[in-house]
């Protein structure tokens, strides 16, 4: 190998580190002998090697990767079973909700016309509840489910006869009792003001809308109010007649004049007048 000033640096380290072949080493030394300055440089050259330093990367955990293991068949089967169980539970709960409606307690048949002021026609239609409910579901559910619903509804109908149960259902003891009376054959025993109050409270508590019962409360209330109006008018007429006969009780002239004379203001003895 021919060494020159232009290429001697490329082999200097090999020479110093004793990596040249015998032949190349002799040639290099011949070159150095011809170039004393360069020879002096290499003789004074110290192969400074950096001392080793131990340094650790601060947090190797950030660098590691963990391969995702393929999920086993058991894992998938377990997930499928859980999903199936959830579907079955949801279906059961939905069926339970359909079959036990607390909005099908009573039903009042539609009243035709306002002339019929009798409250006799307003009856709880409990006996049709089972059949009607079954009919509504027949197109959608199996015979087994229909029978099951029928049993549940029959039980609900039986419960309606129990005022305590009715209280529980309406969550209001006072209104429950009055409503029950309203819907029963004992409605005549319910005082008029309580009837009105009951109807109003039913409307406010939204029991009517939730129970699908066709309460026709509006019409019922209209009947009550009309009845009361007739009664009030009647009392006024009676009052005027009494006034003409100078038989109006003392102190009630104002009420008579304002039309606010009430039945309970007139002594009972007056009603025995002939």
């Amino acid at each position, binding site marked *: 190998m021919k060494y020159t000033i232009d*290429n001697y*640096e*490329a*082999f*200097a*380290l*090999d020479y110093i580190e004793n990596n040249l072949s015998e032949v190349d080493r002799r040639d290099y030394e011949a070159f150095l002998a011809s170039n004393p300055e360069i020879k002096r*440089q290499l003789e004074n*050259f*110290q*192969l*400074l*090697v*950096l*001392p*080793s*330093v*131990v*340094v*650790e*990367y*601060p947090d*190797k955990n*950030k*660098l*590691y*990767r*963990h*391969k995702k293991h393929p999920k086993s068949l058991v894992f998938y089967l377990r997930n499928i079973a859980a999903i199936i169980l959830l579907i079955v539970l949801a279906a059961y709960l939905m069926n339970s909700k359909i079959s036990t409606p607390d909005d099908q307690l009573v039903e009042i048949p539609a009243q035709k016309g306002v002339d019929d002021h009798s409250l006799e026609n307003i009856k709880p239609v409990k006996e049709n509840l089972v059949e009607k409910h079954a009919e509504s579901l027949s197109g959608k559910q199996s015979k087994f489910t229909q029978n099951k619903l029928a049993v549940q509804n029959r039980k609900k109908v039986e419960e309606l006869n129990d005022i305590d149960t009715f209280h529980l259902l309406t969550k209001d003891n006072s209104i429950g009792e009055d409503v029950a009376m309203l819907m029963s054959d004992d409605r005549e025993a319910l005082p008029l003001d309580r009837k009105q109050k009951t109807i109003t409270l039913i409307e406010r508590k939204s029991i009517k809308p939730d129970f699908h019962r066709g309460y026709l409360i509006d019409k019922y209330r209209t009947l009550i109010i009309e009845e009361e109006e007739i009664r009030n008018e009647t009392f006024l007429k009676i009052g005027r007649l009494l006034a003409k006969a100078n038989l109006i009780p003392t102190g009630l002239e104002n009420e008579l004049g304002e039309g606010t004379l009430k039945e309970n203001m007139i002594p009972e003895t007056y009603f025995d007048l002939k």
Partner: protein
Amino acid sequence: MTANEYNQCVNKHADGLYRFAVSMLSDRIEAEDIVQQVFEKFWNRHQEVDPGAAKSYLFTSVHRACIDFFRRKKTSRNTTELLPLHDAAMSSQDFENKQLIQHMLSQLTEEQKSLILLRDYEGYSYKEIADLMEWTEAQVKINLFRTRKKLQFLLTNSLTQ
């Protein structure tokens, strides 16, 4: 390369890469970021890399990232933070020597530092360094020779002061 082989690369080379990056950049935080980024890219391509070529791949990537850092920041010789070389077992003389070396390193250019660190810290052959820095072997030897001459000059000057 499998995930296990990748993790083995982390165990084998993370410290060396970090040491190299810190020595180059004189910035531990930046060095940590670079090493993390390099391993992240390495993971994304780990299936394409042969395990035998992992070290070269990693050091090449870190080296390039360090050079890019210098170009962006245009910092070369200002030392802000050096390697934590001191420990309780070290003698005061050793500590002074190492401080001196670090000072001398800071006087080198980025390329000179790369050469010295790859050769002395990581034990790369001239050919490996050439591949990493995309030089010829002759260029590596010439520049390394000149770098060592410079280090010697700096050492001599510091000792005589």
